[in-house]
């Protein structure tokens, strides 16, 4: 296991920011910490990066104990925080050179790493431009490249795509997935359930400092998220009649859409469709919707992920 955390606790005065958290991250996986703001994700990451002390528990990163070998831990991780930590007045290459100097990289290794960043993270096109002249997406890419310039085996990303527009977000997800192909282990925090679902091999859902569930996104959705739902939209005037026809099913109406939950959605969709058509009701829309990680969070925490984000 490349990261092992056991019963970690961190207080801020009376507040328990991290409350007895335990998990392991396997080599080469993308592991996500999913939770609303204030769940303790950033604190946990900062502890793993040796930027904060913890009150009790045990944690090892790349086999090094956080409490005893903090320098070796720092050398084995690349931490990319939420905010861009690049110098605006320096070019991207100069920023890389600065980061490389902090890790005492020789010029040969530095050139190799710049080559790697150009190829994998696509920073080659703006290497010699000053950071102040870059777009938000370019800055984030450069920031990620600078944080892994020393070729660490572990990459820790704190909400890497917060504030991105959907296209850039998707582009960034591909970059993160690419890192996995270069034998990097990625630990990322997010409050975006789609992001966790899309790129993470395993997800730990955090709430109020605790991990409330941990598994593969698909498994979490299947075991905790509940059944699939068939969303049906008919003309407003026919909604009541449609509900009466479908009374044998478990139905709810949300935003003028009838939702039928079913364990075997494909069969039920065919049945429902036939029943409605035979009674003269034409459906405007009928689709199967799988449970999301948001549903998982609601079931576990009793509230929405987005409420506090």
């Amino acid at each position: 296991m490349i990261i092992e955390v056991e019963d970690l606790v961190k207080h801020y005065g009376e507040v328990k920011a991290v409350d007895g958290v335990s998990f392991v991250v396997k080599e080469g996986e993308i592991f996500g910490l999913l939770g609303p703001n204030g769940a303790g994700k950033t604190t946990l990451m900062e502890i793993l990066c040796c930027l904060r002390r913890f009150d009790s528990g045990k944690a090892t990163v790349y086999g090094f104990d956080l409490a005893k070998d903090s320098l070796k831990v720092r050398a084995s991780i690349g931490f990319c925080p939420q905010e861009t930590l690049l110098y605006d007045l320096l070019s991207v290459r100069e920023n890389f050179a600065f980061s490389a100097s902090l890790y005492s990289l020789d010029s040969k290794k530095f050139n190799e790493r710049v080559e790697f960043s150009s190829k994998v993270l696509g920073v080659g096109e703006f290497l010699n431009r000053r950071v102040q002249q870059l777009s938000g997406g370019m800055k984030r890419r450069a920031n990620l490249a600078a944080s892994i310039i020393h070729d660490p085996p572990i990459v820790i990303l704190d909400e890497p795509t917060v504030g991105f527009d959907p296209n850039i977000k998707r582009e960034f997800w591909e970059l993160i997935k690419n890192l996995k192909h270069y034998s990097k282990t990625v630990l990322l925090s997010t409050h975006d359930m789609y992001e966790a679902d899309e790129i993470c091999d395993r997800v730990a859902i955090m709430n109020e400092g605790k991990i409330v569930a941990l598994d593969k996104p698909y498994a979490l959705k299947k075991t905790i998220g509940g059944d699939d739902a068939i969303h049906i939209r008919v003309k407003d005037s026919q909604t009541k009649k449609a509900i009466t026809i479908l009374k044998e099913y478990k139905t709810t109406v949300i935003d003028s859409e009838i939702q039928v939950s079913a364990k075997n959605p494909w069969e039920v969709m065919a049945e429902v469709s036939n029943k409605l058509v035979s009674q003269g009701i034409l459906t405007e829309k009928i689709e199967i919707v799988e449970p999301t990680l948001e549903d998982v969070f609601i079931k576990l925490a009793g509230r929405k992920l987005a409420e506090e984000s």
Partner: protein
Amino acid sequence: MNSIIGIAVKDIKTFFRERGTIFWTIAFPVMILLLFTAIFGREILSTQTWE
């Protein structure tokens, strides 16, 4: 050692690329020096002659 050189290089580059910093740390003191020399330079000379 590499780290110290790296930090120094970064600081020197950012210093010389910030126009405001260069004005306030180099140009402005020189301007003040010239100004006060122009105003009080003769007085000091005459004082010295008087003594």
